[in-house]
């Protein structure tokens, strides 16, 4: 690694730590209903939203009502998004006259964007009209992110409240996340991106005649307004097919750096918000520390792998699938960030990373994207592992486990286990079915273990609601569109519903003050135990599958074997 690589790594970490308290403090105020400086400017918009939507903002919902609102809202959004795509030919803002999207692709894309996955079977610049991109996809980029934050806030309330039947109001949380957090940041972020060169126009595609006389039709569109929320909301769905590798989506090293920071910004701030709202500030930093440690370790493994000499080409830092302006370091760094969070935007082609770098990307997702993670999703995913750690620690000393003054009992643990296992099952069963199904195998681009990795990566990305891909796989087929939609569905709802059940159950409990036997959760020991539990669960579940893909590919490759 170059000295500049270390510097960029350090600057990134320092900036991430620096923005966490102010953003976390701000979000804690927003979601507890305190007035912030933003209320003067945008308070009217919040109230207008409730009025127009017929929402009673004072309703305090039980976990069941919260979950019902969440479900109804998501199913309706999927339906509307399908409708827009399947009728885009007759809708305005379609300068390239793209036809309607075929139903199974529209269904896959709708589930994908509503669940904050943003898996893309389609290629944006040859499929989607500006209308679909804006009115369909951009809107869901915001709302799926806002819903994720809402669930994290509801869970936080469940832990903070005592003997309460309710965990907040889904509409209010979603509205506030959108209007006070996501939208204002995105307005500034969009302008910054345009300044760097991201396009923002409604003009039709431009035909250039190159210096050597070849015609080149260059796509345009309102990209910047979508790219900003795609990164900040850890959505990751590219305006163009090549996503954040495309020079119109990520034109400079600076746009790249800020995009990387924005992926982690809200996920990191949520740990501070959590500490703030539950009064356990130090515990919030312990969670942040565990996340950061995992991030540094995994990223270092990935970098080490990419910088090791590849015996097939006798070179290190292979530039296949990487952009010159980012180089090796920023490509690998981005790949680790985007898979740690549930972003899934890519600034390099993950399929062309070294086998172990690709494996790190998969492991990041398989662990549930809890390393800062998706906005909200990373936090409540991490909370599953925290509850599990508290439970295991309790078993070790033989007492009823307590967490922040709440007793953790069988009911909560059942929900936690369900939420941890559901996406794992979706990944492994989906991969298993596909590995023996001719309809799936005909989509592969690479042979040997890398072909298996393409399938494993696809289900991991879908079930973890990530959306990045080993993009050699032709996933825009009836088989994959439907199978991966199911995986994305499980990856969202089979976690959110149990999480809300846990929140509801914890909210009802009495506060039991800590005693000498309580296992402290604001210590380094707890952070280490937490990391241990995460790694053991991840390793036990996925090591066999990884062995068949990237691990065997790596072992063969270092002997010079190609496929």
């Amino acid at each position, binding site marked *: 690694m170059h000295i*500049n690589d270390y510097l960029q790594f350090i600057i990134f970490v320092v900036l991430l730590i620096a923005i966490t308290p102010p953003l976390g403090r701000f979000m804690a105020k927003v979601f507890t209903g305190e007035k912030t400086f933003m209320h003067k400017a945008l308070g009217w918009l919040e109230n207008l939203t409730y009025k127009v*939507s017929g929402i009673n903002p004072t309703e305090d919902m039980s976990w069941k009502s919260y979950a019902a*609102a969440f479900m109804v809202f998501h199913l*309706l959004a999927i339906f*509307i998004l399908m409708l827009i795509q399947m009728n885009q030919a007759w809708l305005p803002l379609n300068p390239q006259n793209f036809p309607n999207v075929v139903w199974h692709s529209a269904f896959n894309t709708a589930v994908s964007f509503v669940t904050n996955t943003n898996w893309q079977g389609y*290629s*944006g610049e*040859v499929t989607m009209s500006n209308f679909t991109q*804006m*009115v*369909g996809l*951009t809107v869901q980029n*915001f*709302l799926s992110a806002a819903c994720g934050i809402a669930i994290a806030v509801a869970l936080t309330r469940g832990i903070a409240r005592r003997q309460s039947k309710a965990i907040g109001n889904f*509409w209010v949380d*979603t509205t506030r996340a959108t209007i006070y957090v996501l939208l204002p940041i995105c307005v500034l972020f969009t*302008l910054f991106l*345009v300044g760097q060169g991201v396009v*923002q*126009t409604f*003009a039709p595609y*431009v035909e*250039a005649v*190159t210096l050597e006389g*070849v015609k080149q*039709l*260059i796509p345009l569109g*309102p990209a910047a*307004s*979508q790219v900003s929320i795609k990164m900040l909301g850890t959505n990751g769905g590219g305006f*163009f097919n*090549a996503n954040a*590798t*495309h*020079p*119109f989506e990520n*034109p400079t*090293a600076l746009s790249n750096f800020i995009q990387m920071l924005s992926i982690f910004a809200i996920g990191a701030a949520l740990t501070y918000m959590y500490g703030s709202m539950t009064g356990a500030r130090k515990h919030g930093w312990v969670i942040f520390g565990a996340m950061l440690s995992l991030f540094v370790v995994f990223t270092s493994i990935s970098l080490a792998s990419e910088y090791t000499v*590849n015996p097939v080409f006798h070179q290190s830092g*292979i530039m*296949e*699938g*990487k*952009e*010159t*302006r*980012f*180089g090796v370091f920023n490509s690998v760094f981005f790949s680790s960030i985007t898979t740690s969070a549930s972003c899934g935007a*890519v600034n390099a*082609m993950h399929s*062309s990373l070294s*086998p172990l770098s*690709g494996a790190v990307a998969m492991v990041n997702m398989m662990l549930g994207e809890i390393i800062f993670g998706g906005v909200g999703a990373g936090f409540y995913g991490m909370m599953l592992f925290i509850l599990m750690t508290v439970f295991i620690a309790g078993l070790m000393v033989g007492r009823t486990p307590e967490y922040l003054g709440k007793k953790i009992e069988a009911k909560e643990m059942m929900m936690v286990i369900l939420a941890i296992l559901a996406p794992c099952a979706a990944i492994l069963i989906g991969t298993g079915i596909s590995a023996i199904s001719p309809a799936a195998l005909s989509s592969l*681009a*690479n042979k*040997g273990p890398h072909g298996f*990795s393409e399938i494993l990566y696809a289900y991991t990305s879908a079930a973890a609601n990530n959306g990045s891909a080993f*993009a050699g796989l032709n996933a825009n087929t009836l088989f994959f569109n439907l199978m991966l939609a199911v995986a994305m569905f499980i990856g969202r709802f089979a976690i959110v519903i149990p999480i809300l059940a846990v929140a509801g159950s914890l909210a009802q409990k009495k506060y039991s003050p800590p005693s000498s036997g309580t296992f402290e959760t604001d210590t380094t020991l707890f952070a280490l135990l937490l990391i241990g539990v995460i790694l053991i669960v991840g390793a036990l579940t996925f090591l066999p599958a990884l062995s068949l893909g990237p691990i065997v590919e790596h072992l063969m*490759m270092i002997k010079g*074997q190609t496929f």
Partner: protein
Amino acid sequence: MKYLIPALRFNIFMTLLLGLIYPFMMTGVSQVVFPTQANGDFISRDGIIVGSKLIGQNFEKPEYFWPRPSAISYNPQPSGGSNLGQASDALKKAVDERRAKLKAAHPYTTEEPPQDLLFASASGLDPHISVEAAEYQLQRVALARNIDKAAVQKILQEVTASRQLGILGEKTVNVLVLNLALDKK
């Protein structure tokens, strides 16, 4: 089900706000503040659009600097990379062919061709090459244009962009900008 009507009204309101007002407003402001960037930074020569500063294009003639290999042959419909793994037969074959071709075109050097000229970019539209990749081609371009190598070197130095803010990213050479500067001379 009591949430169905609020969900619908909420969705419609948010669609108006986030799907129409927000992108239209951002487009309006961008077109005023950053008109060049917002519209794709196109370059015209003699009234003809010859390309975008940000979008790579193919060069094969000896008098031009060549860009990186592209899995989509620089046709941006759609963009993308090869997605071949690092232990792929197909990739090895492609790289061997590119190396042989580069060596044949650059007989005056025994240097190995730089990595970025052997491996395809991620977007297929990478507008840049590394400084090494440009220097590797310098002599060929100078000979084909029948000009002094130092003159080409000077233009290359002018076009080379350093790391952003001195730290971020890598040093780059924009191939289209470089070739345009050469043509002007």
